[in-house]
């Protein structure tokens, strides 16, 4: 039985006067991997930013356990919900471990030294993303895929039950995309972390997600299990795309083949 804690209620989001998301009420199932899909400019990232209180809604609310995320203390929220934005900034010459340690900030006292637990969480996160032996390397000497995994390790070290990621696979080649998604699903299966990502690739999203949110130019098109959401009708509504949906020969999940 799925419990639901993270919800939006009548959410309207926009930059300036332009509403990108209008009056959206929906829920994100707990302890599942959810992917937000949709064409460019439909507000996928905007929605994710609002879930993580990075963007204040013009109307409506985002609630976590019944509490408005904007009314929560931002540090307390940071212990429950982590977000990896699309283009974080890497300080010059920073090493992998130094980067990961900054993910522990919400857990540290104002003048406290590093606790054994902090360091343990950091090394565990690094091992989890397969960078356990790279911790002293400068970030900018890593390959693109490794670098992205290092950033993911930072939010893993933040040790939150909710993990939000904005297009974590952009710029990566296919093998690295699979690596990143596998790693997120592992985290979900092992620790019960709720993972919410924005993804571009429909087939990968179908493979790795338990739950999909499909947005179109006119707002929410469908939400639910991949088999239900990725129908030919829904794809036409969301993308204006004529496509055939067949079972993936490897996993049996829906696979989209444009006509």
């Amino acid at each position: 039985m799925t419990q639901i804690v993270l919800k939006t209620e009548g959410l309207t989001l926009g930059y300036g006067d332009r509403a990108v998301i209008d009056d959206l009420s929906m829920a994100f199932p707990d302890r599942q991997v959810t992917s937000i899909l949709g064409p460019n400019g439909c507000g996928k990232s905007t929605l994710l930013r609002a879930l993580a209180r990075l963007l204040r809604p013009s109307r409506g609310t985002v609630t976590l356990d019944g509490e408005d995320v904007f009314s929560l203390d931002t540090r307390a929220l940071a212990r429950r919900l982590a977000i990896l934005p699309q283009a974080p900034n890497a300080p010059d010459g920073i090493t992998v471990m130094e980067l990961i340690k900054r993910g522990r900030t919400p857990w540290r006292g104002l003048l406290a030294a590093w606790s054994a637990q902090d360091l343990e969480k950091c090394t565990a996160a690094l091992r989890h993303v397969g960078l356990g032996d790279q911790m002293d390397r400068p970030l900018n000497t890593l390959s693109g895929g490794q670098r992205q995994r290092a950033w993911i390790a930072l939010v893993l070290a933040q040790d939150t039950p909710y993990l939000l990621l904005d297009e974590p696979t952009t710029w990566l080649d296919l093998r690295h995309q699979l690596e990143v998604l596998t790693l997120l699903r592992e985290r979900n299966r092992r620790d019960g972390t709720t993972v919410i990502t924005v993804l571009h690739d429909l087939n990968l999203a179908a493979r790795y997600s338990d739950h999909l949110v499909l947005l179109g130019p006119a707002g929410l098109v469908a939400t639910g299990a991949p088999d239900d959401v990725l129908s030919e009708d829904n794809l036409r509504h969301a993308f204006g795309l004529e496509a055939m949906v067949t079972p993936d020969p490897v996993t049996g999940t829906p696979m989209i083949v444009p006509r």
Partner: protein
Amino acid sequence: MKGTLLVIALLLLAILLSLSVGQVMIGPAALWDGLWHGSGPGALFLRVLRGPGVGTALGAGAVLGMSGAIFQILLRNPLASPDVMGFTSGAGLAAIWGVSAGIALPIPLFSAIGGLVAAGAVILLATDRNGSQPPLTLILVGLGVGFFAAAASSFIMTRLPHQEATEAQRWLTGSLAARNWGHALQVLGLGAALTFALALQVRSLALLELGDDLAAGLGTRISRSRGLLALTGVLLAATGVAVAGPLPFIALMAAPLGARLTGARHPAGRLASAAAAGAIITVLADLAARAAIPGLQLPVGVMTGILGAPYLIWLLVREMETGDL
């Protein structure tokens, strides 16, 4: 570790050189003697003639260096510093206005207000339609505000009597001549207080460095943290300006030089090395300004200009090659 020791050694060497060298040379032995026995020529130079100037230079250099480091980290741009962005010129303008109008309030108060007004003007004028401030626009608008403040300072000077105008001119160029222990204690005391305030904010600076969204996700209140850091940065710069005038280029140079010497990467280490590097540069520039031409004390700002401008040029050439700018 090696880098830290190197910086400390350089700092001590700079202090020693600055105390020893001048129109009259005085050896380390005599200084040592003066330090412990409180008499003799060593004590005279230490306590009266050179000590206060060196102390003031140390403090002013350190606060300017930290201020530069704050803005460079905050805006992620090596060109962002309170001197390039006009804050020090604003502080200088307010100080010179206060003195010329004969208002009996402490100079640091004027320079702090001037620095804050300049910073506020820069932020306001650089804000675009979307309500954000692109770093390069901040830098360019800051240059403009600096030009205006400098011109307004010259305008005020025009109205001063000759003797005061000469003094004001030296001060506006950046000068450490005739500084007493009052100046040194003022900059060191205020500097220490602001450094403490800064220490409490280092963690949010380290997060802001990763980008606003990630920092917010990690529990930082972005606008409040940015505002407080910028406020601390402006006040640090104003503290330096109050005792040494709007010294050019120290804030710009100190952070990269310090980071290069110590290899520090975390903002805490970079702020500390920027303070040390700022102090070293200022003490040495002051020494050069005193000793370069026998019998004549140039304003130290002339020396930091001669040192700093080539650095800025080098920076631009390098950035051009790496295509960062």
